C-alpha cells in the first residue's frame, strides 16, 4: 500500500484569530483513488484544501508526496509545481477566451505562442478525456459542465498527481454530473489521485473509494466506502445520531387557525423580463409549497417575479384579495414578502460588512433611511438571531465573508426572519451547505409554517422538497406544467410531471 501513496498529510494545524480551524488532521491519498473529504460546514474541509494548495500556510504538521521527503507548500505555485491541481466550485477560467487558450494560459515558457500547436495539443487532450468541446471554441459557449471539464483538463495536462475537486457538481444537472463522473473514473484509471469535496451523499457513494470525515477541525476517521453505510456517515459528520429525516413533517402540526384557508398571495398572469411565460400562483396562510423542475426551468425566475427582483412586464398580484403593486424588491418587502436568493455570494451577502449589519439590513431598509437603529438595538437583534439560528461566528462584528457557507446562509435567513415576513421565499436555501444545517433549515421552515407563515421552498434535491412541501408547482421550459399536492407529492409523480407525461398527448 505504502508505495501507492501519492500524498500524505500528518498532524496538520491551522489557526485563525479566535478559531483553531485544523487540529492535527491526518489525510492520505493513494494513486488512482477517488477520496471523498466530508464534513459539515466549518469542519475544516476548505481549510485543509487551502493548506494543501498553498492558499494558507500551515501552522504545523507535515506534507509529503510519493513517500519522498517533506515538501513545503507556501504558495499556489508551489502546489502546482508539486503536481497538485484544484478545480473550484466556481469556474475560475476566462469565458471570453477559447478552450485552448484557457487550457494553456499562464503556462507558456516561451514568449511566442504557437497557436496551431496549442490548438492541436488541446484537441488531443480533449479527445483523450472524451470532453465534448473543441479547442477553438469560445469557453462561454460551452455548458457549465463542459467548462468544469475544461478546467479539469487544464489541471490534468499540467501533469498533476493530485487533483482536488471542490464541490464541482453543485451547479450541474444530473446528466452533466454523470459525464463528470465518467471523466473522474477515466482519470482514476490513469493513476491520478482525486480528492472530491461534495455535499451530495449519493455522489460520494457512486464514485468514491474511501472517505475521510472531519468534524470541528479534527479528524473523525478514514473509512473504506463499503464499511461505512450512509446513515453512519451522516452520524459521523454530525457527531450524533441523525433525526429520522422522513418524519420531520409529521412532527410539526400543520397550521390550522381559523384563517387557514386565507389566500395570502395570488398572482395572475405574472411575467418578468427574465424570460418566463406568464404564470398564475397562489399561496395560503401557513402553507409550504415549492417550485420544482430542472435547472433553468424557470423556478427562480418565478419567485423573483413575485418579489419584484426582475422587471415586471405584466400581470397582477393580490395580497389578501387586495391588489398590490410590486415593481421593485422594496415594494415586496413592504407587503411582508421576504426572498432568500439562490446565489448567496452574488445576491445575498454583503461580504465585508459585519454579521450584525448583514442581519439588520432588510429590516433597517424597511424601517427607513432616516431611522437608523441604535448600536445597542442592532447588536441586540444580531445576538438574538445568532443564538436562535445557532450561527457560528466569533462575534457580531466579524465580517460575514469569513464565515463558512452554511453560517453565511443562516445570517441571510436571519436577515429575513428579523423582518417577520408574512410570506417567505427560500430559493435553494440548502445548496452547498452541510447536512446538519440542511435539516435545521427544513425544520425551521415547517415550524414557521405551523405558526402561520407562508413559505415557498425551492430546492434541487427533490427528497428535500417532498419532506417539506405540501404542494408542488412543477415547471418545465420556463412555464408551469403541473401542480401536485397531498399524496401526489412523491418522487415518481414529480419525475413524471417534469419529464412531461401529458406533453405526448
Amino acid at each position, binding site marked *: 500500500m505504502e508505495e501507492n501513496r501519492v500524498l500524505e498529510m500528518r498532524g496538520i494545524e491551522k489557526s485563525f484569530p479566535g478559531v483553531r480551524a485544523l487540529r492535527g488532521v491526518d489525510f492520505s491519498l493513494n494513486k488512482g483513488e477517488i477520496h471523498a473529504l466530508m464534513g459539515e460546514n466549518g469542519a475544516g474541509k476548505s481549510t485543509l484544501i487551502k493548506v494543501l494548495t498553498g492558499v494558507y500556510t500551515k501552522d504545523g504538521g507535515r506534507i509529503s508526496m510519493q513517500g519522498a521527503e517533506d515538501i513545503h507548500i507556501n504558495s499556489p505555485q508551489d502546489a502546482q509545481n508539486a503536481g497538485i491541481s484544484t478545480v473550484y466550485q466556481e469556474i475560475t477560467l476566462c469565458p471570453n477566451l477559447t478552450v485552448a487558450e484557457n487550457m494553456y494560459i499562464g503556462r507558456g515558457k516561451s514568449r511566442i505562442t504557437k497557436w496551431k500547436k496549442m490548438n492541436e495539443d488541446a484537441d488531443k487532450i480533449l479527445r483523450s478525456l472524451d470532453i465534448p468541446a473543441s479547442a477553438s471554441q469560445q469557453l462561454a459557449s460551452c455548458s457549465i459542465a463542459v467548462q468544469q471539464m475544461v478546467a479539469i483538463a487544464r489541471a490534468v495536462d499540467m501533469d498533476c498527481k493530485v487533483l482536488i475537486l471542490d464541490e464541482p457538481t453543485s451547479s450541474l444537472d444530473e446528466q452533466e454530473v454523470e459525464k463528470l463522473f465518467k471523466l473522474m473514473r477515466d482519470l482514476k484509471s490513469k493513476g491520478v489521485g482525486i480528492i472530491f469535496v461534495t455535499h451530495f451523499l449519493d455522489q460520494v457513494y457512486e464514485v468514491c473509494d474511501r472517505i475521510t470525515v472531519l468534524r470541528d477541525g479534527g479528524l473523525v476517521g478514514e473509512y473504506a466506502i463499503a464499511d461505512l453505510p450512509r446513515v453512519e456517515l451522516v452520524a459521523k459528520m454530525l457527531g450524533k445520531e441523525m433525526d429520522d429525516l422522513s418524519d420531520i413533517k409529521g412532527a410539526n402540526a400543520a397550521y390550522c387557525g381559523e384563517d387557514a384557508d386565507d389566500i395570502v398571495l395570488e398572482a395572475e398572469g405574472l411575467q418578468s423580463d427574465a424570460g418566463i411565460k406568464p404564470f398564475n400562483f397562489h399561496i395560503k396562510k401557513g402553507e409550504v409549497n415549492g417550485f420544482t423542475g430542472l435547472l433553468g426551468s424557470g423556478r427562480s425566475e418565478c419567485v423573483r417575479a413575485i418579489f419584484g427582483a426582475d422587471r415586471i412586464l405584466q400581470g397582477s398580484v393580490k395580497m389578501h384579495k387586495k391588489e398590490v403593486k410590486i415593481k*421593485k*424588491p422594496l415594494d415586496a418587502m413592504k407587503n411582508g414578502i421576504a426572498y432568500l436568493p439562490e446565489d448567496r455570494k*452574488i445576491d*445575498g451577502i454583503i*461580504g465585508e460588512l459585519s454579521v450584525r*449589519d448583514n442581519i439588520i439590513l432588510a429590516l433597517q*431598509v*424597511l424601517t427607513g433611511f432616516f*431611522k*437608523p437603529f441604535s448600536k445597542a438595538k442592532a447588536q441586540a437583534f444580531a445576538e438574538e438571531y445568532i443564538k436562535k439560528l445557532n450561527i457560528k461566528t466569533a462575534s457580531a462584528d466579524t465580517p460575514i465573508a469569513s464565515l463558512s457557507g452554511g453560517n453565511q446562509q443562516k445570517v441571510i435567513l436571519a436577515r429575513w426572519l428579523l423582518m417577520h415576513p408574512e410570506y417567505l421565499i427560500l430559493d435553494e436555501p440548502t445548496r452547498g451547505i452541510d447536512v446538519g444545517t440542511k435539516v435545521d433549515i427544513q425544520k425551521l421552515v415547517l415550524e414557521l409554517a405551523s405558526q402561520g407563515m407562508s413559505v415557498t421552498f425551492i430546492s434541487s434535491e427533490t427528497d428535500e422538497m417532498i419532506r417539506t412541501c405540501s404542494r408542488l408547482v412543477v415547471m418545465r421550459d420556463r412555464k408551469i406544467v403541473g401542480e401536485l399536492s397531498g399524496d401526489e407529492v412523491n418522487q415518481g409523480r414529480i419525475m413524471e410531471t417534469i419529464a412531461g407525461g401529458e406533453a405526448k398527448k
Partner: protein
Amino acid sequence: MKIDIKKLLSNQLLIPITALVILCLVNLVNDASFFTIKLAPNNEGYNVFSGPLITILDYGSELAILAIGMTLVTAASGGQDISVGATIAIAGSAMLRVLCGGVSKPEALAAPIIVGFLVACIVGMLCGVFNGLLVSIFRIQPMIATLILFTAGRSIAAWINNNELPIVPDPKFKYFGGFIPGIPIPTTTFIAIACIVVAALLLKFTNLGLYTQAVGINESSSRLNGINPTFIKFLSFVILGLCVAVAALIKVSRLATINYSVIAKDIEMDAILAVALGGNALSGGKFNMWGSILGAYIIQFLTTTLYKFQVDAAALPAYKAVVVIILVVFSSPVVREKLSALSSKKKAAAKGVA
C-alpha cells in the same frame, strides 16, 4: 504592556497617524521653528495667527471638505471623481457672475453673498447630477464619466463670465478664505468643522453610511434588500457637488476673483489621495470618514513640509508622488499581512524563550 500588536496593525488609522508622526519628526529635526505660531497683524491690520501649522489648518480644510464627498463617491461607485478641480472653477465662476452681475469691476455687489453661494451650490450639485447620471444610470466608469467635466470644466467656467476676471468689491467676501476681523484663526477651519459636523450627523442619523457601503460592496444584493443602488451612487455625486461648492467659495474668496486655468488645479488628486491615505479602499465598499479627513490634513502637512524644504512648486508633485507611493504600499493588504505575520512570529519566539 498589554497592547495587542495585531489589533493595532489592523487599525485603519495606523498608517495616516504614523505618517503624521514621521512628518512631525522630520520637521522637528530639520527646523523646530516649523511648529511656532506667531500672533501678528496681517495685511488688513488685524492680529492673526500665522506659521506653517496654521497654513496646514487653512489649506487642509478645503481638502478635508472635498475628501468628505470623495469618500462617499469612492465607497458607493468604486471609482473617483476627477472633475473636482474643474467643477470648483465652474461653481466659483457662477458665483462671481452672480455677485458681480457680469461686470468686471463693479462698484458694489450685484447680489448678496449668500445668494452667490446658493447659486454655487446649485451649480456644483448640477455638475454632480451630470456625473452621477452618467455613472449610475449609464453605468460609465466614474473616472471616464468625470473626465468630461475635467476636460471641459475650465472652459465652461471661463465662458460663464465671458472670459473676464471680475473682482468682488466687498471686503467681507474675503472673510471666507481669510480671517474674520477679531478672530485669529482662519475661517476655513470653521467652515471645515461645520462640514464635518454635518457629515457626522448625516452618518449618524441616517442610513447613508450603511447603504453606501452595502452598494459599494455588493450592488446586486443591496438591490434585493430594497436599496436603490442607482440612487445611492447618484446621491454620492450630488453630495460631492455640494462639497465642491463650499470649496469654490473658499477658493474664490481667497483672491476675490478667479483664475480659470489655475484655480484648484490638481486638487482632485489630493482629495483622492486623502481618501486612500485614510486607509479606504479605492475600489469602494467599506469606508472610514475620519480616515479621509485626517488624510486630507496630512496631505497638506506634506505639501507645506516640502515647501519648507524649498522644493520648487513645479517639482512638488514629483516629491509628493514618492511619499505617496511609500504610504500606499505600506497600507496595502500585502504589506499589512507580512507585518502582522512578522509580529506574531516575534511573539512566538518570545514565548519560546520564556
